[in-house]
């Protein structure tokens, strides 16, 4: 593979952060005017040259619509698009390439599960279990489903450290529980949820499981066969790929039982005005022109991180998270939300007497980008007793200088505001 990444060994000390940073144009171009300390990768990550070039190259030399034309360009585009599906399937260790559906986003993938699996198989009185630390994208689709089918939502509480109790979860499973939909990793607290255990318990109860991997897939290696989940969703843009593409992994036998979600071109076998018949998964769920170049861009992003090594990235981010946690904890009046033993690259915090928006504006003046607000998790904010938090989230390109700039910026904000 042709990625200009400095060769890295499995030891984090040889993880060449400076070489990696040079591969992200935004970190270099913007830094000519201003220092860039980008600490909002949890919202959307920056893109390496490798991804940008692959997408640009496809538009310039190999672009046409897929699955349609009997001409060379269409064949090239179809090969690239289906090749991207294969890359994703291998990345997740799916049993079959047909288990990978490209969607517009992780949100799109969850809505597909709700709209197809949910509407077909859930009835009045059936229950869906989610956790208290879900993103709105893993709450609202189930509420809409409930309005349509009469199914109910049950919520596993989160404790002070940001963990859910497996015992409580188990006690909530009933013969009415048709689906468990939980996050792999909290976008607010950084907690890594014990999804393997959740899948085991749910399956023992005859319940299907959907994992929201929007954050989880970025920070840890996912093996869907080992995990055993029925559905796993994630998005491209948090994984150093483009926006506009998401992935739904679904077990083949389930996907084949599920009705189509959207109707349109490509997903059909034969259309007449009386009745249409549909193709098998994944095509059944990809109505209309899909995110062609975006899918290829996502595959490039996967190649990029696999070349660096997901283990190396994990070690780098873990070290940085520890450093950041200890630096922030030194600041008087700062409290961190989410101190699970099992967490990855996200720190939510508040500083006494300073609203996160004011903090964000002041940090921005020093080139530090963080997220402020409710992080699309208002129920969790309510549970923690706050309206908003500041959130720093790490990407593979962050370094200690970014963390020092954050800590210094917080001290500066205290000077300005008090």
């Amino acid at each position, binding site marked *: 593979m042709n990625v200009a990444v400095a060769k890295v060994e499995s030891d984090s000390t040889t993880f060449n952060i400076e070489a990696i940073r040079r591969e992200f144009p935004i970190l270099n171009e913007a830094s000519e005017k201003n220092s860039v300390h980008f600490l909002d990768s949890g919202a959307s990550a920056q893109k390496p040259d490798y991804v940008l070039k692959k997408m640009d190259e496809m538009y310039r030399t190999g672009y046409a619509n897929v699955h349609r034309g009997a001409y060379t360009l269409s064949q090239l585009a179809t090969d690239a698009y289906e090749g991207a599906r294969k890359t994703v399937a291998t990345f997740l260790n799916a049993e079959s390439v047909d288990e990978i559906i490209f969607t517009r986003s992780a949100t799109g993938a969850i809505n597909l599960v709700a709209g197809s699996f949910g509407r077909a198989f859930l009835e009045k009185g059936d229950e869906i279990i989610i956790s208290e630390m879900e993103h709105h994208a893993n709450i609202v689709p189930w509420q809409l489903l409930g309005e349509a089918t009469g199914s109910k939502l049950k919520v596993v509480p989160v404790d002070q450290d940001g963990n859910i109790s497996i015992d409580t979860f188990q006690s909530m499973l009933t013969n009415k529980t048709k689906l468990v939909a939980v996050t792999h990793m909290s976008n607010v607290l950084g907690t890594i949820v014990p999804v393997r255990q959740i899948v085991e318990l749910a399956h023992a109860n005859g319940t299907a499981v959907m994992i929201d991997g929007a954050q989880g897939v970025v920070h840890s290696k996912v093996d869907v066969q080992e995990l055993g989940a029925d559905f796993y969703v994630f998005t491209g843009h948090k994984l150093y790929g483009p926006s506009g593409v998401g992935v739904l992994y679904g077990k083949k036998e389930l996907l084949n039982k599920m009705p189509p979600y959207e109707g349109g071109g490509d997903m059909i076998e034969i259309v007449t005005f009386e009745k249409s018949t549909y193709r098998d998964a994944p095509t059944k769920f990809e109505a209309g022109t899909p995110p062609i170049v975006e899918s290829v861009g996502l595959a490039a992003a996967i190649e990029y991180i696999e070349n660096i090594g997901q283990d190396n990235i994990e070690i780098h981010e873990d070290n940085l998270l520890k450093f950041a946690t200890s630096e922030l904890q030194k600041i008087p009046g700062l409290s961190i939300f989410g101190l699970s033993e099992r967490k990855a690259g996200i720190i939510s915090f508040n500083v006494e007497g300073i609203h996160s928006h*004011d903090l964000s504006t002041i940090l921005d003046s020093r080139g530090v980008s963080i997220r*402020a607000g409710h992080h699309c998790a208002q129920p969790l904010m309510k549970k923690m007793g706050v309206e908003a938090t500041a959130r720093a989230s790490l990407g593979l390109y962050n370094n200690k200088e970014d963390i020092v700039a954050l800590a210094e910026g917080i001290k500066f904000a205290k000077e300005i*505001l008090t």
Partner: protein
Amino acid sequence: MSVDDLRELYQEVILDHNKNPRNYGELSDASYTADGNNPLCGDRLTVYLKLDDNELVNEVAFTGKGCAISIASASMMTTVVKGKTVKQVNDLFDKFHKLCTGESDEAELDEFEDEIAKLRVMSGVRQFPMRVKCATLSWHAVEAAINKKDTATTE
């Protein structure tokens, strides 16, 4: 954006209003109340108004939580709308909005010279387009309350 812009945004007056907001609390006998929501950040304020027989704002108060800009702006808002007619409050809101977005020129603001002189400290948000909604949240709410709507959002 410079440190001077930041100091301009977070002037002493604003920090003071944030720490000691004026007219903070519920009005149990309010004629009108309205909530102001900023769905982007989750900030929420409630504005309470009492009108007298001549439709003048007799009392005004607010509750809620938010950033320094939204709280300070709400506090200042309560100090300037008291004693105004419904129309004057609407006009002031319009002028204040223009002040924050940089659309207004000085001459246009003459009608409420004293009020605008007070509110001008908020004009530092011009340099921070993402914060204009923080400054105008309470104004959207008071506009909703006085025009008998229940809620206002900044969207």
